[in-house]
């Protein structure tokens, strides 16, 4: 990126990157204009009006309303442009496309654990296909971390006790740096890795390579059996607990009269702390699974519940 032997500008490797850079250059243009304006004025005034004799006494000027209005309104309008433009990009960054490929990320001091839906896991590396939106569903096992890929111009904090998401679409194959950018303790600067973007075909072969693994949904189903979830949450509404088929994305009516959208956070909370939100019409009898299941395990169960949804969705269609 530079003839100096070291980079001065980061690589653009995602669909977001050129859009962020465009806004950045707009801001840079405005900044350079005003900084230069002030610099020129100061130097010009300093030279032109330098003190020539010690008893000089300039004529006082107390102000000028027109000028005050001018230098209030012009910056205000410019900053409003920045706001609107920035807000649009921001909304895009935090609103993943619905067809995105979901990948689960669990952060811990000091590593990134990634699991693909098909079951393949990796540490401090993330393989992705180019030309396809990728959505990360992330949580932390301990402190706050932050998933940051400079070449993609995206980052988001990874929080304990909650899911956050991040999406991007790589535009060209290559290896890109991944940083943890929220200070997380001693080896914070060692919590780095690479995003490896592959051509879709290569990605497919990478995904099926390696040791044979079970998919996340299957792993989740196994956990669902092992932890005994299935004994209450039957596929139909005959169990002591509500059926979970097709749950994700639906609106759930609660005992308290409120209703929530059943997203990943809701499922996670309902596993770890079932009494927080009781579904209307069911007794609060589910045991607490906190301590019995890992963050990775919860993600697998969610993947399993999502797979149930797809099956049911197919049935509804006909």
């Amino acid at each position, binding site marked *: 990126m530079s003839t100096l032997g070291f980079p001065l500008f980061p690589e653009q490797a995602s669909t977001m990157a050129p859009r962020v850079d465009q806004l950045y250059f707009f801001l840079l243009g405005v900044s350079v204009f005003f900084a230069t304006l002030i610099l020129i004025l100061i130097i010009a005034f300093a030279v032109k009006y330098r003190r020539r004799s010690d008893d000089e006494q300039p004529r006082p000027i107390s102000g000028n309303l027109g000028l005050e209005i001018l230098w209030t309104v012009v910056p205000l309008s410019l900053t409003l442009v920045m706001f609107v433009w920035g807000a649009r990009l921001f909304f895009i960054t*935090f*609103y*993943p496309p*619905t067809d*995105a490929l*979901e990948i689960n990320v669990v952060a811990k001091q000091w590593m990134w654990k990634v699991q693909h839906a098909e079951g393949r896991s990796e540490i401090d590396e993330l393989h992705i296909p180019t030309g396809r939106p990728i*959505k990360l*569903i992330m949580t932390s096992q301990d402190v706050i971390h932050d998933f940051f890929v400079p070449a993609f111009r995206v980052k988001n904090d990874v929080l304990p006790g909650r*899911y*956050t*998401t991040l999406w991007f679409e790589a535009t060209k194959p290559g290896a890109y740096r991944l940083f943890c950018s929220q200070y997380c303790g001693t080896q914070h600067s060692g919590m780095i890795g690479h995003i490896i973007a592959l051509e879709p075909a290569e990605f497919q072969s990478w995904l099926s390579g390696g040791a044979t693994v079970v998919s996340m949904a299957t792993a989740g189903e196994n956990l669902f059996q092992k932890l005994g979830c299935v004994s209450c949450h039957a596929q139909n509404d005959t169990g002591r607990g509500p059926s979970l088929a097709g749950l*994700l*994305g639906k609106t759930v009516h609660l005992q308290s*009269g409120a209703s*929530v*959208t*059943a*997203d*990943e*956070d809701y499922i996670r909370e309902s596993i770890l702390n079932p009494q927080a939100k009781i579904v209307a019409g069911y007794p609060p009898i589910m045991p607490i699974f906190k301590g019995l299941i890992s963050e990775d395990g919860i993600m697998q169960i969610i993947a399993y519940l999502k797979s149930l949804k797809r099956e049911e969705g197919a049935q509804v269609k006909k």
Partner: protein
Amino acid sequence: MKSDHVVSIKLYSAIFGALLVMTLATAGAAFIDLGGNLNTVVAMLIAACKALLVILFFMHVRYSSRLTWVFVGAGFFWLMILLSLTLADVLSRRWLPTVVG
């Protein structure tokens, strides 16, 4: 800043009585299910009334200069900034669910 207004014992006693009545009222109302969030609203309204009486009469703000009012108001106004902007985050956090189709 403040006038040397001397409040009568009668008025002080009336305020004291009102505060006691409201304390009993709020404790009593707590046992009645008013439905929804109404219990909280009633409790907080009564608390605000009590606080207002203490500020205006016991603390003599009713008889004090505008400047005193400004600083009393500033304290509560800034508290409202803290509460409202933080709640703007907490309450709207789930408007964009993390789930996709």
